């Protein structure tokens, strides 16, 4: 069976920000190839016209009036955060500043 290369798997894992164990990399080399072959079939479909839909909803989008609504307390805003620091949510230092 065809498989992706290690690098190809690591590339898509990087795009999706997923760490993989060596075992997983090996497993996904085959599994991802199956899916890539699946999606490739779209290339052979002859489309009928130039129309394109990204949502079944054809109505014009409604606009919201510019009025301020209810907001959260700092406590509620951070209640589910795994790491808090006072009223802030904490992450490891962001270097790309």
């Amino acid at each position, binding site marked *: 069976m065809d498989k992706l290369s290690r690098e190809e*798997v690591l590339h*898509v*894992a990087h*795009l*999706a*920000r*997923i*760490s*993989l164990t060596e075992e*997983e990399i090996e*497993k*996904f080399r085959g*599994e*991802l190839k*199956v*899916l*890539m072959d*699946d*999606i490739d*079939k*779209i*290339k052979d*479909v002859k*489309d*009928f*016209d*130039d*129309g*394109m*839909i*990204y*949502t*079944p*909803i054809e*109505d014009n*989008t*409604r606009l*919201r009036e510019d009025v301020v609504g209810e907001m*959260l307390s700092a406590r*509620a805003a951070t*209640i*589910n*955060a*795994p*790491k808090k620091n006072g009223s802030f*949510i904490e*992450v*490891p*230092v*962001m*270097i790309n500043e």
Partner: protein
Amino acid sequence: MSKYLDLSIKEIHELLVKSKITPLDLVDEALKRIEENKDLNAFITINDKVREEAKDLGEVDPDNIFFGIPIAIKDNIVTKDMRTTCASHILDNFIPIYDATVVNKIKEAKMLIIGKTNMDEFAMGSTSETSYFGSPLNPHDKKRVSGGSSGGSASAVAGSLIPLALGTDTGGSIRQPASYTGIVGMKPTYGRVSRYGLVAFASSLDQIGPMTRNVYENAALLNILVGEDEKDLTSVKKEKEDFTRLIGEDIKGMKIALPKYFISDIVDEEISKRIKEVISYLEKNGAIVDVVDMRYLDTAVNLYQIIAMAEASSNLARFDGIRYGFRASDVDDVDSMYTKTRGEGFGDEVKRRIMIGSYILSGENAKVYYDKALKVRDDITKEFNRIFKDYDLIIGPTTTRVAPMLGITKDDPHKAFMDDVLVIPVNMAGLPGLSVPAGINSKGLPIGLHIIGKAFDEATIYHLASFIEEVL
């Protein structure tokens, strides 16, 4: 043991109005049944406040047949102060701080939320076996799956643990498990029911819908769920209507299309035979059923894979361990926070789909795969519209086979999609579709009939479904 929950909603309602029983009796019975059928693994979380809520419900409203009726909610619909996991490790301790719009509606209708049902992780899968909490079982045969992704809701209703449940359907996830477990499951028209508070899998396909024991209760529950929501720009404003209004009418002159593809050799012979029997019965009762050619139906799975995985890769990007959910321990830089949290937090099916989804949108691939899929999606929608110029409904089997044994589709990335080959086209076109029980096969396993309607014409689907339910 009391058996109130085996009665119809109407009958239960009468008992409540006459004060023969209380909502607490119903809740206690449901909790007992859930406890006794723990092996079905239908629930992830039980609402530990539900008995209090039942006591505090107040006067019975004689005009509201859902007053005090317990309901189960699929665990990808957020419930304030009640754990919502999407059957994933990454959210296994997540307590939402707001209610989904449908949950508000359920609460306003004075229904009692008994708990959150099991499902495929983030609704990705067709057997509910990708759940972090283990697979729910099919009450008809506990060695078989109850389908997916709304497998827990299907198990709970089919196993008579609860009369009503909510499911969600992105590529058949309400109808296919309904078919596998012999219950009624409706995916409403895209835009009918607000998605606000439904944890998005594929935003342009997802829709919440009712899963029930019979057609009438399904239509009545849909009455509660629908309506334009200012919080969801894809919800649509429509005249208020009663979806039960055509139930029980005769079907003389009803025009029904049966696409060739739906009875082709991809469908199990026993199922095809059963569907044909039902069709001849419909014809005997005055319906006109024509076999039609429909293009693009066989491309739907392909479209689904591309569109659903692409959208999912973006929708699930927010699970990063920052604002909520699980964060991997020992991460000291931003990149490892992302990759370890997501690597440890997601299961394999989710990982596969978001990796492929990212690949689909990456660079030039977006044109090759995604844009092309949107074009063909337009074509398949137009093809449905063409058929609906001449026909009221389209029918076929819901699934190509009956509920499979546990374990056989797990870790087969391709097969996971093939269970939904007949139901996916409906999501592509945003149409309403329903699975209604159409008998059993030689092993006693349920077969489902799939009814597809015009956009926003759920009432006609219920019309035919109620007829089939009545005569079978």
